[in-house]
């Protein structure tokens, strides 16, 4: 199976995630779609790692997983904070920080 298949599949997954980030309004679902995009990047990194027969891309993917875990923790903390302050979970309504 050619590496191109994997990379094009990761492009599809990335585009689906981007569409979700742009169209959904629940911040929780937006975080899920960000996970989709990060995982698509991971798939591309691992495909290129296989293409060169070199483990560096896998280390990079591991670091991306670490960053994704950190993003999830902080993002979910913010969402719980939003819920506690009785603000509606809707990114259109979350405009308090707008300048």
């Amino acid at each position, binding site marked *: 199976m050619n590496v191109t298949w994997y990379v094009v599949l990761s492009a599809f997954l990335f585009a689906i995630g981007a569409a979700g980030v742009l169209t959904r309004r629940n911040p929780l679902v937006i975080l899920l779609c960000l996970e989709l995009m990060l995982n698509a990047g991971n798939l591309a990194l691992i495909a290129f*790692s296989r293409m060169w027969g070199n483990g560096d891309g896998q280390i990079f993917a591991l670091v991306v997983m670490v960053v994704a875990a950190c993003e999830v923790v902080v993002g979910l903390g913010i969402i719980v904070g939003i819920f506690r302050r009785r603000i509606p979970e809707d990114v259109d309504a979350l405009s308090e920080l707008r300048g």
Partner: protein
Amino acid sequence: MIFKDIVFFIAAIGALGGAAGVVLLRNPFYSVLSLVGHLFFLAVLFLLLNAQFLAAAQLIVYAGAVMVLYVFVVAYIGGAEEPLGDTVSGIRALGVLFALCLLAELCVAVIGSGLKALDSSGAHIGAGFGGPGQIGSLLLNRFLIPFEAASYLLLIAAVGALVLARKRRGFEELTEGGGTA
């Protein structure tokens, strides 16, 4: 070889279906479950690419731990179904259009890159490729500083989550006193 192709197509269809489910399902709880399925099929793809350690980490860390965190938060905040109808449909269509443009751009970039190795099934690899031994020796020799930076990042994120989740008296008084909100 044909067996690998069949597994690839099954896993690719599963991953695409899971991703579409995350975006299209209205209940956040079902979105999370769909993402778990997506991560499972992605782990199969990682295995096909000889990344055994990452496939295991994906299943244990992602599908196991991170998704449980998501499920807890969805259960905590109630997981209200998102009303899909009352938004500005033009902006939604613009978002989908932008995603399609991104997809076209990425595909053009991949196919037009002219990398000869893209059309092969990869370079020759040794027996231990992608196993825990190779990952561990790379992490502790060549990538020691990124490894340490990642561990600091995790520590900072954990402290940040504690700060966010803590009940802050000053903050509560501020909102109760008719302050900012």
